[in-house]
């Protein structure tokens, strides 16, 4: 090529400076090609307007609808499957779905979740079945909102909301505890702990066959926690313990 005038091996007048490098010459590529634009150069009027042609984008944007969100003055809903902060769900009668199995903690690549399980007892039944999550913490300084935890959850207890406003002034405040994460009470539900719906198994709960609070559960809470705030609102809904629901 024309401008590749100097042979790298040619003496430059100072022999010591000319160093060869295993990968080739140090200061220039072995085969330096000249720049040649693939865009055809404008001619005529085009060439004349070229310096202001860029403003065309600016002017045309002025007539398009604006997409800037005036957050925080205007809040635009996120996409429905946006990965926001987590929520621990409840069954229709108010029992917690979380069984404290720690699979979410296991799945978490950022080690943001800490769970301790405990045993349900007749006196304190928090979730259907034998086990419930006694301690549940998510550290939002660590969480990367990947959603592996909600995929791991075997009871669909853990889901993600669309809420994303999670900034806070302290580190402690960003560790969310179980009471912060628990979903609000469904209408007519009764705060845990209380017994499972009469005749229902944990499988019935899982299959969605418990659709409301039973009279027996309300009676139980009335007996043991008469001033529970959820008690007045707990409307009796018919519970349908599946007769065939003995399979696991």
């Amino acid at each position, binding site marked *: 090529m024309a401008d590749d005038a100097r042979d790298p091996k040619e003496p430059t007048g100072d022999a010591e400076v000319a160093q060869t490098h295993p990968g080739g010459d140090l200061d220039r590529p072995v085969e330096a090609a000249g720049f040649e634009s693939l865009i055809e150069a404008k001619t005529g009027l085009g060439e004349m307007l070229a310096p202001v042609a860029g403003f065309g984008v600016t002017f045309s944007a002025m007539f398009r609808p604006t997409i800037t969100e005036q957050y925080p003055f205007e809040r635009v809903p996120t996409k429905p499957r946006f990965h926001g902060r987590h929520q621990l769900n409840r069954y229709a009668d108010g029992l917690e779905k979380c*069984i404290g*199995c*720690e699979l979410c*903690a*296991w799945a978490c690549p950022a080690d943001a979740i800490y769970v301790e*399980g405990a045993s349900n007892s007749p006196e304190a039944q928090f979730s259907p079945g034998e*086990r419930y999550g006694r301690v549940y913490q998510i550290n939002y300084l660590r969480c990367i909102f990947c959603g592996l935890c909600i995929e791991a959850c075997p009871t669909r207890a853990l889901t993600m909301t669309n809420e994303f406003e999670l900034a806070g002034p302290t580190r402690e405040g960003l560790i969310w505890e179980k009471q912060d994460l628990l979903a609000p009470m469904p209408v007519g539900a009764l705060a845990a702990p209380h017994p499972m719906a009469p005749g229902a198994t944990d499988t019935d709960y899982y299959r969605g066959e418990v659709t409301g609070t039973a009279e027996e559960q309300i009676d139980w809470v009335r007996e043991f926690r008469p001033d529970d705030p959820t008690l007045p609102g707990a409307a009796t809904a018919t519970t349908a313990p599946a007769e*065939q629901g003995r*399979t*696991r």
Partner: protein
Amino acid sequence: MTITTPKQAGGGVAPSNLVTFQIDELEVSVPKGTLVIRAAEQVGIQIPRFCDHPLLEPAGACRQCLVDVSMPDREGNLRPMPKPQASCTLTVAPGMVVKTQRTSAMADKAQHGVMELLLINHPLDCPVCDKGGECPLQNQAMSNGRSTSRFVDIKRTYPKPISISTEILLDRERCVLCQRCTRFQEQIAGDPFIALQDRGARSQIGLFSADVLGFGGDVPAGPAALDESGRPFASYFSGNTIQICPVGALTNASYRFRSRPFDLVSTPGIGEHDSCGSAIRIDHRRGAVLRRMAGDDASVNEEWITDKDRFAFTWQSAPDRIATPLVRDETTGQLRSASWAEALDVAAAGLAAATTAGGGHGVGVLPGGRLTLEDSYAYAKFARAVLGTNDVDQRVRPHSAEEDAFLGHAVAGRTVGGAGSVTFTDLEQAPTVLLVALEAEEEAGVTYLRLRKGVLAGRTAVFSVAPLASRGLDRISGTLVAAAPGTEPEVLDAITGSAPLGQLRTVADGLTTAGSVILVGERLAAVPGGFTAVLRLAERTGARLAWIPRRAGERGGVETGALPGLLPGGRPVSDARARVDVAAAWDVPSLPTTAGRTTTEILRAARKGKLSALVVGGVELADLPDPAKAVRAIEKVGFVVSLEVRASAVTELADVVLPVAPPTEKAGTYLNWEGRPRPFPQALASTALADHRALDALAAAMGAELGLRTITAVHAEIDQLGAWDGARIDAPVESAAEPTELAPGQAVLASWHLLLDAGRLQDGERFLAGTAKRTVARTSAATATAAGLTDGELVRVSSAHGSVTVRLAVTAMPDLVVWLPTNAPDCAVRTSLRADAGDVVQLAPADPAGDDVVSTDSAGSDNNDEVSA
């Protein structure tokens, strides 16, 4: 590829005993009789299995390990077996060709099929199951099972967990009927408290209950065989079934739903509850121990540990842990928190003034028997080099001068591998084992399992010199050589080759067989002439002798000099050369020459004002032969420094309390009864100091250099001292005491500690406490009749100091003897009666109107085991 197993025949198997066969196209040579599944393991081929366990007999129960096998026929033509074979029950044969799931589609399909059948009734419980994450069924269902289930029908269900004991829960839905648990209980522990019941699809593991199985007349006799929760056949080894269960069928009540394996950090450890030095694994999370598992150490505990080693760990984090140094306030007289600097200064000033050099009467040192080697060495050195006294004694139990001589003569220096030493393997191989004052199951659980292994293999015959045959002795087919407390020397002396044909002659002949062993318990110290007679017997028969104390630190204390007559390395204090030796190593001008006092003598001297101060380690006063006198001694003595983990009777009375670390929070070494060092690392991060470090700081505050600040420094110093090659202490010569005359209604007390009792190291573990044996008193039928007692009724056993009231179980045993557990929750013999084995007590039917249905002395609840300091 040729594989040999050197461990089976100790360095190579003769080629004639090798069988060569093919597995997955690999040529393998293994010793004759090897199972195919083991041979596959040796070449790194993993065959899935549930029921197979290397330490249990093959069962072929789960059928998961099916492989495709071809055998050569008579003409040598290879003929495939028509069906897949269970590789866990199939021994290798020459020319056999085995194809596992790796090379045979048939084997793979068979395994998939078995897995599918096993999972049919297995609940989808994994998220709530404690085994989840470390479950062989979970893992092998992934590696050798179908990825989707074809099963659409209704699963068989059972009520969720039933409790087999307070400690163990059984979830029958999860069980795959591999029978590892029942086989363990039958073959290893000998407590078949669970069994396979029913037939076909309803087969299930269940409690060994009379309703289901019908005992065939073998109904447990009276309250004696029941545990605290009233169940028959509670086992001291039941925790092992949880660990070997390949599914989550057996789980532990105290660990239930506590954590997942990925939460846990595992640190190897050593059991601190007995002198066996069992390897354990400590699983902890965020600075709290959640569970302990058996470690795997073929030379010591194999893969088994006692329930006490497994479950009793909560004492180390009990709420009464001492967090900061405490100093008694001069104005209020109450203990108050202090800085380490202040506490050390106060302690140093008090001790310096109390030493003879400082113008006092001297200081006594009671380190307690649960120390690590490093800690007890520090106590021994601190006493001699800093306090200038030989008054140091680790024994917190009945002891005697005869025992001092015995330990110095026959125990010190006999570490593993040395001449005359006895190991676990020796026990298993010994033709005859004689237990003297040792209830192996209660006082050394893992040792008991080894004895049982030898017995079941038909190699070992066990004899026990004891007042009664316990259920433990029955289960090792042991023979009782009946001896009332105090008459042991007489019985031992009668074991001669010239004895008339009979039991004693059998024992004598057995002991003369090469490899026979005499195991002596610490309780023999309470019998005058006992150790003398044992040494005579060992000499007469040529049997080897091993001493098995109960506490983890006592064997180490013999080597480190935590006894009044011994310097480190078993050097006699009386030997001038030994003293010079040690003084040179310690860089002190000289060591005290006067013989030291024993624990009882130290306490007596303290009571009489002949000692000015005491340094007390992990000592539980209620464990001492006379707790009341011990309390008085601590009260009387001018100055007490206590190094303790938890608040105790001593810390309440102490002037300065220095908090020290429990075993999980320090590194150290136990010496087990074999004399085998059992080092363990620190499991939990902690600011607590080990005893040796606290003593080093205390010495520094007194202006002396102990040089034991780090564990490396302690080891370097012990290594530098080395073993003692000089003469040992002379053998004890003590004659047996004359038997006491008994008035009507009187009996001689026999007693030993049960494994699970009111010991402080079992505090805070209610599930474990529920599996303890029920408290009973035992007498012979004749004694019961003479004293007007009825079997199963309450009996009042009393001494001049108090009484206990417990149920009576009439037992075959010598007349005029009554047995009581030493420290059961409702029967603390030393506190209530101030009596011990060999003492005379009064028997009477309990007054039904009396209010003493349980023990009269409530102070007995925190008896027994002192906290390791």
